[in-house]
C-alpha cells in the first residue's frame, strides 16, 4: 500500500502552517521529513495517520493494505506513550485486545514481536523499570504487533541519549533489512535522516512547503560503512536548513 498526500494546506488561525504539500510514500520506502522547529512536520504526520484533519487537501491510501494488517497506519511516538500500569507484554496486548484474535494467536504475535525487538526477557517488567531506549523498543514492538502497512514515526529517537539513539538506529535498520517496511519518519536530526531515509523531504519554515526532496540510493545496511558519502548529503541538507533554523531559534514565543 502506498500513501499519497495531495495539496495539503493547514492554518492555525491566521497562521498558515502547511501550504500545498504533495508527497508520495511508496511501499517499502522510508521517507524522512525534516525541517526547522515549528515548520509543521509533526502536524503533517498527524494528518497522514488521521489524528488531525487538514483544512484543504487529503491523504489517500493507494492500493489495499495487506489482509492481515490490523492497523494499517500505526504511530510510534516521541514520548513512547506506554501505559505505566501495564507490563511490557500488557502494553503490546492492549492494542490486540480489540481485535478478534484467539488467545493462542495473540500469544504468538506477542512472543514474535518481543523476540524481534529483543525484549523476550522483559515480558513482565513495568515501564518505570525500563530505560528510555527499552521503552521505545516496547513501543516499536507494540507497533509491529498490529502488522502495519505504514509506520508513522514522530521523532522516535529524540527523547533518547546519543548512544541509545545509535543502538536503536541499528535496530531499525536491522528490522528493515530483514523485512522492509514502509515508514514516514519525522525528525530534526539530520544524521538520523541520512541513515534511515530513502527519500528525505526538506520542509521550509512557516508556511511549511516542500523545499527539496533528496533521494539516497545507498542501501540502509551499508550506510554505516559509507559515512563519507552520507556526510556530503548531510552537509547539503544543513545548508538548506541553516538560515531558517537561525530565524526559528531567534523567534519569540507568541511574538
Amino acid at each position, binding site marked *: 500500500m502506498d500513501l499519497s498526500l495531495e495539496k495539503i494546506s493547514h492554518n492555525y488561525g491566521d497562521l498558515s502552517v502547511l501550504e500545498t504539500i504533495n508527497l508520495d510514500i511508496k511501499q517499502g520506502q522510508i521517507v524522512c521529513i525534516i525541517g526547522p522547529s515549528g515548520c509543521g512536520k509533526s502536524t503533517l504526520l498527524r494528518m497522514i495517520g488521521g489524528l488531525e484533519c487538514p483544512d484543504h487537501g487529503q491523504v489517500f491510501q493507494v492500493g489495499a493494505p495487506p489482509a492481515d494488517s490490523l492497523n494499517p497506519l500505526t504511530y510510534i511516538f516521541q514520548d513512547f506513550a506506554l501505559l505505566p500500569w501495564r507490563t511490557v507484554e500488557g502494553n503490546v496486548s*492492549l492494542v490486540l485486545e480489540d481485535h478478534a484474535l484467539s488467545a493462542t494467536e495473540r500469544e504468538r504475535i506477542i512472543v514474535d514481536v518481543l523476540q524481534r525487538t529483543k525484549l523476550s526477557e522483559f515480558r513482565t517488567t513495568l515501564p518505570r523499570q525500563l530505560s528510555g531506549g527499552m521503552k521505545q523498543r516496547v513501543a516499536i514492538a507494540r507497533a509491529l504487533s498490529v502488522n502495519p502497512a505504514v509506520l508513522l514515526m514522530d521523532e522516535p529517537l529524540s527523547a533518547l541519549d546519543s548512544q541509545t539513539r545509535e543502538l536503536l538506529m541499528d535496530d531499525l535498520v536491522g528490522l528493515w533489512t530483514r523485512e522492509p517496511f514502509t515508514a514516514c519518519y519525522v525528525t530534526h536530526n539530520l544524521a538520523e535522516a541520512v541513515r534511515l531515509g530513502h527519500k528525505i523531504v526538506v520542509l521550509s519554515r512557516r508556511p511549511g512547503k516542500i523545499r527539496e526532496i533528496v533521494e539516497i540510493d545507498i542501501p540502509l545496511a551499508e550506510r554505516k560503512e559509507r559515512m563519507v558519502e552520507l556526510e556530503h548529503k548531510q552537509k547539503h541538507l544543513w545548508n538548506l536548513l541553516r538560515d531558517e533554523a537561525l530565524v526559528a531559534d531567534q523567534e519569540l514565543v507568541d511574538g
Partner: protein
Amino acid sequence: MADLEKRKAVPFRGGGFVHQPKLLTGPIVFICLIVFWEVGSRMGWISPLVLPAPSEAFEAFKELVVSGMLWKHLSASLQRLIIGWLSGTTLGVIVGLMIGLSSYARAGLSPLVSAIFPIPKIALLPLFVIWFGIGEGAKTATILFGTFFPTVIAVYGGVDNVDRGLIRMGQSFGMKPSSIIYKIILPGALPAILSGFRISASIAIILLVAAEMIGAEFGVGAYILLAGSLMATDQLIAGVALLSMMGLSVGWLISRAEKILLRWR
C-alpha cells in the same frame, strides 16, 4: 605544591529538606501525651470536670464492651457509614466520569456541583428528615450527599489529568471508545479517585455524628451526643476515641488499596 597548607576541604552544604521514615516517633509522641494527661489528672492539675483522665475514659470504654453495647452502637454506625458512603461514591464516580468525558455534562452539571458542594449537609438534615423519613433514610442520605460531591470533583479532576498522549495513542491504534475509557482513562484517573475516597471517607465519619443527632437510638454518634447531654465526659472521650479509631482504620484500608492498585507507580 607550595600551597599545600592553604588547601581546605570544601564544606558540605547539601542534605536536609528530605523526609526519612521515623517509625517510632509517632507512637512516642502519642504515648507521652497520654502519660502527661494521666499524670496531670491524678495530680489534680487537670480537674476531672474539665477533662476526665484517660484511665476513666478507658473504664467507660470497657463498660461499653462488657455490656455488649459497643457492638450495637458500632454496627448501627458502620451500617449507615457503609451504605451511605458506597452509594455516595458510586454515584459520584458515575457523575464524575460523565463530567470528565462529555462536554455537555460538564457544561450542565459542573456549575451545579460547585454550587451545592459548599453547602454544609448538616444544614439540610431537617429537609432530609421530611424527604426520607426520620429513620435510616435521612441518616444515609446525609452521608450520601456529603460523600457524593467531593467524589465527583476528585473523579473529573482525575480524568482531566490523564495524559492526552495516551488517549491519542489508543485512538491511533483503532481502540474502541469503551476500551479507551476502561483501559486508559479509568486506570489513569485511579490515583486521584483513591485520594478522593480518602477525603470522602473522613467526611462520611464527620457527617455520621451529625446524622445521628436526630432520632437515633444506637450509633457511635448517638452515644457521644447522649454522653454529652448527660455531662458524662468519660463516655464522651471514649466515643470520640472510637470515631478516631474508625477514621484510622478507614485510612489504613485505603492505603492498602493504594498499595495494591497503584503498584505500578
